């Protein structure tokens, strides 16, 4: 056990899988000598060499196509999109090509590709770096979308993503990279993709969220505890596929829910979580499901994030509103 930040846990996962499986390749912009712009691939080029860890020219679509081709040569590519706001350049290669390979070949071919990318607001990046675009990929059958909320989960989920025989979009919230450390086992371990985690047990209300908002929700729950409100927090860990079972059983227990996402309201993950609750547990609800999200504008940047991103207070208010319905 070692105390690690999330970025260190991610490097650890990459190193573990590069050692475990000679077919694992790590590539992207600046990932080799430079170790990635966030140092996620620090030391990997030195340990594994140019054959396994290599830089690509600066072209995201080319990186996605490269990954698909390498997958067809039985490699297990881990491609990096330097910032998730750049993924639009690779939209065809990810959403049309990687996601569809199994279907197009009638199940003969598959794409065991991990698409790693930093995203998430609150760290004052330039424009089109931090955007919460997970909803776009949630709409793509054939892809899985994983968003860890802490170092321990990041390592276990990333190892699972790399071992998965389907393409996995693995989104790393930049605010979580270095904001805290926790115990991360040195050995390899996996966390099942598609399973949510009950981050906090409670009986009064279920807060369902993912990514950096899990931390925000935990802080809100601490405050709410002072008002004798006992929150249960579900960390989705994977947003596609969604762990409907865990969500629904929590709601059936607490009879109230608030869904929290950093992304804009329209067509987000929260919409779908609420629809699933309505489909499966409507009659267990004592109040309409509350929702905390960013407003329906384009994702702003830098100073604009302060007024835009949902925060602890928004969660506290929405929880109280839902309880007082």
């Amino acid at each position: 056990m070692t105390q690690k930040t999330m970025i260190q846990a991610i490097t650890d996962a990459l190193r573990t899988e590069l050692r475990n499986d000679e077919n694992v390749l790590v590539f992207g912009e600046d990932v080799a000598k430079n170790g990635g712009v966030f140092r996620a691939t620090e030391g990997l080029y030195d340990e594994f060499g140019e054959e396994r860890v290599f830089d690509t020219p600066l072209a995201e679509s080319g990186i996605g196509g490269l990954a698909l081709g390498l997958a067809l040569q039985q490699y297990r590519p881990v491609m990096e999109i330097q910032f998730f706001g750049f993924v639009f350049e690779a939209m065809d290669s990810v959403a049309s090509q990687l996601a569809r390979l199994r279907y197009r070949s009638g199940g003969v071919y598959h794409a065991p590709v991990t698409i790693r990318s930093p995203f998430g607001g609150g760290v004052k990046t330039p424009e089109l770096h931090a955007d919460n675009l997970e909803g776009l990929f949630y709409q793509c059958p054939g892809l899985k979308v994983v968003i860890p909320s802490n170092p321990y989960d990041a390592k276990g989920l990333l190892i699972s993503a790399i071992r998965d025989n389907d393409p996995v979009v693995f989104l790393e919230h930049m605010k979580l990279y270095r904001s805290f450390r926790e115990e991360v086992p040195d050995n390899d371990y996996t966390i099942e993709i598609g399973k949510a985690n009950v981050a906090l047990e409670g009986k009064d209300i279920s807060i369902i969220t993912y990514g950096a908002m899990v931390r925000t929700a935990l802080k809100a729950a601490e405050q709410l505890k002072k008002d004798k409100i006992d929150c249960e927090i579900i960390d989705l860990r994977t947003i596609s596929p969604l762990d409907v079972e865990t969500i629904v059983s929590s709601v059936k227990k607490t009879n109230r829910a608030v869904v929290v996402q950093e992304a804009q309201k329209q067509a987000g993950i929260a919409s779908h979580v609420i629809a699933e609750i309505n489909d499966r547990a409507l009659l267990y609800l004592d109040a309409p499901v509350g929702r905390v999200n960013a407003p329906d504008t384009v994702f702003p940047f830098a100073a604009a994030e302060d007024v835009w991103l949902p925060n602890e207070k928004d969660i506290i208010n929405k929880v109280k509103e839902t309880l007082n319905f």
Partner: protein
Amino acid sequence: MPVNYSGKIEDFFPTLRILDTQGHVVNNQKKPELTDEQLRELMWRMVYTRIWDQRALSLNRQGRLGFYAPVAGQEASMLASEYAMDKGDWLLPSYRDIPQLVWHGMPLYKAFLYSRGHFEGGQYPEALNAVMPQIIIGAQCTQTTGIALGLKKRGKAQIAFCYFGDGATSQGDFYEAMNFAGVYKAPAVFICQNNRFAISVPVEKQTATQTLAQKAVAAGIRGIQVDGMDPLAVYAAAKEARDYAIAGNGPTLIETLTYRYGPHTMAGDDPTRYRTDELTGEWEKKDPLIRFRYYLEQLGLWSKEDEEQAADQAKEDVAKALKQADAVPKQKVTDLLSFMYEQPTQNVKEQLTEYSAREGDQR
């Protein structure tokens, strides 16, 4: 003073031609070494494919095929380049490049299933190294680079052949692919079949360059332009590019100057809206089958009987393949659901249950 490239760069990309329209050898030095049997085989394939294409058009009009992009006019460009491939080489076609797939090892009935959108059309035999025909213009180019890099890393003596049209050269993916392949010295051959029209838009409106082959310059890779109606020139260029890649020198871009006689696809395209009969007539005079037939007849390698046999065989095979395609069970929603992931996810599992119940009801 800025450099004026006009009339300079294209001088490096003269059109390679070996046979003229009358089947006379005009470039003995570049003439590829093909045995009599190989020459006959190539002609057989071209005649066969022309007949199959004609049958496909009429089947399409009868509603018995789905999506189909006619190939007549492009036989030399398609088949003589595929003829330079080794059996183990990887093929990345566009939607028009079904003939290369079939001659590379895809059973004909699977071509018909692909046309109909049946998943079995994409289930290739293990020995066929190919990716399904690409619809997104240029997307196969970047995938080719990935496959070629993979082959190189694996130390295999195989290369990747990629087919696309003149329109694709306007796509970022085309340039990204060549650029990556150049950096990695990936063993790939990019074959741009310049049939002059991307649906309706003429190549002059795709680019201000005089040739498409010269686009290789920007990626620092080899480029060559060939007469795409001349099977010997196409074969020679493709073979040379393959040898060059196998030797570890990296990729080549080949531009084949060709023409499609028919519409873009059978889904309502009307070529009279954007090109003249005179232009089509001019290209028909350059027909690859006519010139190759002249050439082989001069050598005593091709006869009327050969021609008839190839045509009859094509008709027979098409009829057989159509029957075979018709006999394949209809695809079900549960089939499609099962191709989404290796292990069905929660939502897929639920829907498998839902749809298999429905499908059970229909029986």
